[in-house]
């Protein structure tokens, strides 16, 4: 069923009795040409672009729980392409361009809202670093603007400009950045992939990867064995556990990241704002809740929840930037598991096992990358060569010394 204004009106007249499920409840077949492990944003987008752009035969997505229960439904919904390094900028800008046409492409309202992102700077050195990043972006054709204090104050008057310790001096702005409805991205890709014949199999946990003579042959699951010509791993958060089934060790640690939302408030913050002196970012959802987050917990974790010291740190950052937040009440918080790589950048590559491909290591930046992650992984799996914008995301870049370390933190995943 195609969604349109006409379909909404027609269904309204029929009492909304004619809507059909967005995707089929597929039963696993004994064999597929391509099996994607992981029904999150990356896996669903990969399946969609495989079906749309490439001829690879039958495709299945295997999800251990239900669609949207992992990081795709646990993030703070920010989309942006304000990166500073050559390996990253073209990839994230490609993703931003896909976001701009996504809803028409998949015929689903993902509530993409290009409300802009303001990265606040608080001292001269930080201004210089942001000017450099903005220039790098512009050289790659990405929009970036450096605002001074007066110009920023005209747009965002409610910051604590004269904070004694962290005075606000200005901001780097990307106006095409913004937010999108995270769940809708998963559902939209699932529906669009399903419409192109992809089998989306929920409650189907992969328990083993079958390999013979260095070639992948299929997977063992809680719903039986499934043969496969090619297998793609897209399970960020659990990458090491799944890769271990194929005997692989990865340059990845799992860490917990929390996110928070306040009670619903009237329209207050019409953009995305990040604090430059600590780690804090905030936007307001269409329901009115202030959605915000900060650092990862700092210790390895597979528990999808955090602890109170991080909550305190995030709220301190928020109140240092926007004292008015002290009046809002926190409604809920939740956690997700991040694949933290050793340089803070993702991996989209072949593995040493033939026909087994890997997509992961998204750190806490996977949501914005969802469309390009799927697009480039589909390209890699179908053509066995990396997409030009994702060619830096090699698995061997650590051994080769070609790291993409935006933060310059070194091989310390808990600091990225």
């Amino acid at each position, binding site marked *: 069923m195609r969604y349109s204004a006409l379909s909404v009106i027609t269904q309204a007249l029929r009492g909304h009795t004619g809507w059909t499920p967005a995707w089929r409840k597929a039963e696993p077949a004994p064999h597929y040409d391509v099996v994607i492990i992981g029904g999150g944003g990356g896996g669903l987008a990969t399946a969609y672009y495989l079906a749309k752009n490439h001829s690879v035969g039958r495709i299945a997505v295997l999800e251990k729980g239900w669609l949207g229960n992992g990081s795709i439904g646990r993030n703070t919904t920010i989309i942006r392409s304000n990166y500073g390094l050559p390996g990253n900028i073209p990839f994230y800008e490609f993703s931003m361009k896909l976001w701009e046409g996504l809803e028409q492409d998949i015929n689903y309202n993902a509530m993409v809202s290009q409300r802009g992102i303001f990265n606040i700077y608080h001292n001269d050195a930080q201004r210089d670093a942001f000017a450099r990043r903005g220039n790098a972006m512009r050289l790659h054709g990405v929009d970036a603007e450096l605002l001074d204090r007066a110009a920023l104050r005209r747009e965002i008057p409610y910051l604590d400009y004269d904070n004694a310790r962290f005075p606000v001096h200005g901001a780097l702005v990307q106006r095409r950045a913004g937010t999108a409805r995270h769940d809708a991205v998963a559902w939209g890709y699932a529906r669009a992939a399903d419409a192109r014949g992809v089998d989306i199999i929920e409650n189907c946990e992969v328990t083993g990867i079958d390999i013979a003579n260095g070639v992948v042959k299929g997977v063992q699951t809680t719903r039986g064995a499934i043969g496969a010509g090619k297998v793609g791993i897209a399970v960020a958060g659990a990458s*090491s*556990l799944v890769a*271990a089934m194929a005997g692989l*060790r*990865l*340059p*990845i*640690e*799992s860490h917990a990241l929390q996110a928070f939302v306040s009670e619903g408030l009237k329209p207050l913050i019409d953009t995305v704002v990040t604090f430059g002196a600590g780690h804090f970012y905030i936007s307001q959802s269409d329901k009115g809740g202030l959605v915000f987050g900060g650092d990862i917990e*700092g*210790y*390895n*974790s*597979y*528990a999808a*929840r955090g*602890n*109170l*010291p991080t909550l*305190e740190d995030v709220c301190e950052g928020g109140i240092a930037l926007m004292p008015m937040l002290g009046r809002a009440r926190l409604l809920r918080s939740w956690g997700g598991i991040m694949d933290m790589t*050793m340089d803070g950048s993702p991996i989209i590559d072949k593995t040493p096992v033939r026909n087994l491909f890997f997509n992961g290591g998204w750190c806490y930046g996977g949501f914005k990358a969802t469309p390009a992650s799927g697009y480039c992984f589909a390209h890699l799996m179908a053509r066995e060569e990396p997409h030009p914008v994702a060619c830096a995301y090699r698995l061997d870049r*650590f*051994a080769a*010394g070609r790291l993409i370390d935006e933060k310059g933190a070194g*091989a310390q995943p*808990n600091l990225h």
Partner: protein
Amino acid sequence: MRMNCPHCGPRGLDEFIYTRDAALSRPRDGGAAPTQNWIDYVYMRENAAGPRREYWYHSAGCHAWLIVTRNVSSHEILSVDLP
């Protein structure tokens, strides 16, 4: 998470700093050549679920280095020992 420091008793998580996996050991060859052992030590991780031994530093307490055995799947602290 609260940890029972052998010197200070039970203290809150915010007094401690996590540093690294205690099972990793630094290669002893001096590091003049980029061997596979060094690549494994610096970059590759087991990253298994369940209990794990790791180094923590009691920075806001007695400044002791501690070996904490912790279940990374549940955050349960199983033991806190001096190295």
